[in-house]
């Protein structure tokens, strides 16, 4: 999940703290009835404050090409959480010093306010604006560039020309996929203008044609009091091809499951029983007349072959990636289920193609990588060279532009649909014949959402000092997980299928020991 961006109200609070807290400190000190403070401290702090405000204003008002309007406020928002805490602690210390007259509080308060003002001025002067990034070259690669689902991915970032002023530290963070891991790097000033290589293990690759968002880069002083605005550099594209599932009982799809007029292989001996028979119709091959049965029935009976017809059978294997609404669910279940659908879809296609069936994969997908417009795309599966099919599988995403009925309409070829929600299909106001459904139950192929672990009331959830212990962050994370849980329920509701008893003869795909087991529903 992507790290959250700075919220506007948080930014406003930080800017107000930076600009207002020093004057509150002066006011508190002045109320201590020390005229000298007013005479000396106010001008001194005013000089520091004006210097800081001027530096920030210059950075904010300087136009930077191709930057949005919020850029100006980002230049002023230089206070970190630590810096804000130091500033407000210092202000409180000065106020307490005015009350208690403790010299230590006065000392701590003064040094805290002065440190933050000096650090903010320094940051604005040496690291403000786009100056640190003007000559920066950030090259980001995800290797391997074309991976197979489940393979380990590695991120490598090469940076050069980044200006890291003395006393500053460069922070880099990024992510690759919606539910992927977050990468975080910190580089000290020794890498200023240097060529640096950063690397991280991203873990198992997830299917898709991915476009990793730009990295976020910013500078912060080594005391942790101030930071610069966030710069965005270094996007990366990479493709993770799906890994087709190993499907058991795929050959059963060819002759069972509601199509009695289709041949199926027999496992009987020649002396056992009879062949499949039917009445004679004009045009039948007379060599296939079953004379014994014809005499018994007093009409011509034709025997049917008990083997796969010598002509290559053909079928269309359709994946149902229609989902309405197809918005970005916060939960991971949609991604997991779609990966499972693609895995089963390609696995069945491979298995049938290997057995001599001409399989055409049908899906609604973008015509080109990262295309917004969806269209029906067909790919024939060639045994041994499934590259094109895998490419199509990598491009599959939930969509609501092309209906499943439009994928099935106007095709005389037998059609199998890999779906999580079998349903009556309509195309052009006409109810379509029911295809053979291969049902992928959502509950079997997804994992439940995790709730935020409840920390013991006596122990912090994370190591002491970690920002994740803050109440605000815990609250936001809890809210995010609650939303994910809500989305999960919505998603499950959208896919809910209760008509199992009305689908005899169709297939159910279940995960068994890492393989896909196809079972006929009775």
């Amino acid at each position, binding site marked *: 999940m992507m790290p959250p961006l700075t919220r506007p109200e948080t930014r406003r609070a930080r800017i107000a703290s930076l600009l207002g807290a020093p004057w509150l400190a002066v006011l508190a*000190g002045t109320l*201590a009835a*020390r005229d*000298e403070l007013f005479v*000396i401290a106010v001008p*001194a*702090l005013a000089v520091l404050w004006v210097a800081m405000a001027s530096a920030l204003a210059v950075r904010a008002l300087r136009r930077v090409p191709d930057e949005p309007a919020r850029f100006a406020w980002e230049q002023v928002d230089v206070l970190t*959480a*630590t810096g*804000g*805490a*130091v500033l407000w*602690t210092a202000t409180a210390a000065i106020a307490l010093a*005015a009350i*208690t*007259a403790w*010299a*230590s*509080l*006065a*000392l701590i*308060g*003064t*040094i805290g306010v*002065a*440190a933050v003002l*000096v650090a903010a001025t*320094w940051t604005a002067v040496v690291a403000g604006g786009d100056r640190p990034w003007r000559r920066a070259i950030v090259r980001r690669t995800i290797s391997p560039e074309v991976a197979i689902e489940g393979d380990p991915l590695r991120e490598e970032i090469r940076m050069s020309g980044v200006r890291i*002023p003395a*006393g500053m530290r460069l*922070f880099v963070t990024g992510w690759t996929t919606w539910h992927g891991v*977050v*990468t*975080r*790097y910190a580089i000290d*000033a*020794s*890498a*200023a*203008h*240097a*060529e640096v*290589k*950063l*690397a*991280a*293990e991203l873990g198992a690759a997830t299917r898709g044609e991915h476009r990793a968002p730009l990295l976020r880069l910013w500078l912060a002083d*080594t*005391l942790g009091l101030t930071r610069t605005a966030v710069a965005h550099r270094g996007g990366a594209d990479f493709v993770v091809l799906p890994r087709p599932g190993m499907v058991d009982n795929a050959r059963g799809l060819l002759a069972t499951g509601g199509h009695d007029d289709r041949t199926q292989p027999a496992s009987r001996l020649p002396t056992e029983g009879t062949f499949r028979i039917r009445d004679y119709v004009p045009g039948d091959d007379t060599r296939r007349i079953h004379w014994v049965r014809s005499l018994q029935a007093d009409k011509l009976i034709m025997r049917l072959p008990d083997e796969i017809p010598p002509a290559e059978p053909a079928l269309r294997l359709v994946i149902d990636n229609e989902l309405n609404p197809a918005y970005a669910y916060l939960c991971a279940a949609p991604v997991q289920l779609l990966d499972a659908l693609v895995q089963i879809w390609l696995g069945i296609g491979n298995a049938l193609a290997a057995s001599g069936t001409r399989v055409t994969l049908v899906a609604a997908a973008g015509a080109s990588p990262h295309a917004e417009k969806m269209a029906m795309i067909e790919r024939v599966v060639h045994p041994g060279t499934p590259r094109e099919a895998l490419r199509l599988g990598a491009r599959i995403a939930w969509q609501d532009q092309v209906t499943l009925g439009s994928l099935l309409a106007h095709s005389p070829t037998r059609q199998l649909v890999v779906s999580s929600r079998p349903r009556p299909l309509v195309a052009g106001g006409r109810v379509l014949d029911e295809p053979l459904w291969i049902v992928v139950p959502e509950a079997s192929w997804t994992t439940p959402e995790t709730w935020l672990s409840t920390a013991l009331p*006596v*122990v912090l959830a*994370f*190591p*002491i*000092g*970690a*920002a*994740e212990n*803050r109440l605000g*962050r815990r609250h936001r994370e809890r809210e995010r997980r609650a939303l994910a849980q809500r989305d999960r329920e919505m998603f499950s509701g959208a896919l809910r299928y209760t008509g199992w008893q009305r689908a005899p003869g169709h297939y159910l795909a279940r995960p068994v020991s890492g393989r896909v087991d196809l079972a006929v529903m009775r």
Partner: protein
Amino acid sequence: MTPRQRRRHAAPVVAAYWLVLLVGLGVVTADRSGTSVAAVAPLWFGAVVGTVVGQFLALRNLRLWLVALIVAAAAYVTLPMLAFELGGFLMWKVLIPAALCGYWCLGDRTALIAFWFPTVVWMPAILDRTQTTMTPDRAGLALLGVLAVGLFAFLRARESRRVALWRAVSAQPLAKASAPALLRQPPGQAVARASWLVTITAVTAAITAWLAPLLWRLEPVRGEEIDVPELVDAPLTDGVAVRAVPCCPRVHRIEIERARVKDYLDLGLGHDAASESLGEDGPACRACGGLDVASTGEITGELAGDAPIEAAQAAEATLRAPVGMPTPTPTPIEPVPVPVPVESTPRAAAVGITLPPAVESTPPRAPVESTARPSSIAITAPPSVVAPTPPPPAVTPPPGPTMATSAPPPAPAPTVTTPSVPPEAVPAPAPHADPHPDAPRAPAVHHRAPITWWPWLVTLAAGALIFPLVTLGLRPVRRLVTLRHLRRPLWDETVDQRVSNAWQLALIGLRDAGWRPDAGEAPRELAARVGIAGVEPCAVILERARHGLGIDAGDLAEVQRQADVAYAAARAPLGAVARTVAWLRWPLV
């Protein structure tokens, strides 16, 4: 993140905190080296135990409310069990904030509040060096600067830990990132980096030293009581006005009124501000017969008589000796007046007491000092005649018709012989009204003897400065020897090793220019990346040697020549500063 990793990241923060705390405790203890252990034992016990407890609980990730509960329970349970010297109010006044600040020193966004306790420990040492004008002296400013440096080191250590936690801890899954690898680094960046922390520390410390004292406030404290002689004006003798001389050896008891800057711990020694008369409860004058001393220093009047001279000697001895001490036997004096220097202690000078020079009719003798009780005034003879000085404005004149500290006209070489007072004649101080009944009693003041710890501190600081300088100075020598060995081995080495030496020589030149090999980067890959003449041939021959292919004498000579070429070519673009910095760099590769 494992507990071991957590401890490893927390170690620099804990170390910085303890360093500041222990140095502060050491300075405060050194300032009070003349006092008993009991004066600083609660401070040490509370600070050390509280900090250990707080940091221990923090490393266990306990929440603040539980830590506060544990500390409070510990106080409630163990208070009756502790010895009185350790279990006093001061100890708990120190231990509780020490525990909380020790906990907060590892917390999030609690840097400044955590540093308050070390500051409290440092403040007595700083405020003892702060005059009543709220201005720290040079030593005080130096301590303030050291404290500021400690704060910035603490903040830096905390930020480094925060960054480590940021990289390793999150509610979302994090990728496992390896350490950044520098492939090429411009030379000469270290100086700018080091200057930043020094600059920001100096600026902030200066601002703090300027502004923070404005928020300080004085609080009156009760000083100890001292006995001072009351000086009365002598009558005119032969029409010549004479300096006020102690005619009657009456001892006037005053209390040194002291002021100090207020802080959390009542440990400040304070500075003398004024004196408060406690009444004329000194010994009665036994034989004051009109001791007259002429302005010329000659003893006039009845001084040549019998009783007054002995009385004066006894009185002088009384002033020199602590109150209550046996009076030394008077020594007969010669009629020839000899000025005897009278030492005015700093404390006496602070209260505005200028003792007149003593004149004795005896030959010069060594001054007698009294150090038995700090509160007594030691009077010894000054090396020269003390010119009368105007009284400081802070002195409260004792009641009475005469003012011992009033500004008399300058008199050339006034002499005085102090009459003696029998010790048994010293009565107990009379009850008096306390001008500051609520003011805390300052700790017993001892004369600040020469600061014995200061030379040690200077020696340590000098050692800490000299050792790196010497090490830095030896680096060019090490580099010179190393380069010499890589070019022409100082001892016999195998051919493969000499090929490796040549490659190392090329790498040193590349490193001077900022190029660094990446981990796992093959030599030829590095050569292709840097594109510097001589590196590629070296890499080719090195890889041949690594793969066990034959290297003949020609290859060896070639690789050495190419290494020299690469070394020179890599360093060619460098400026003078970069070359100089390169000679100071270590390790070389």
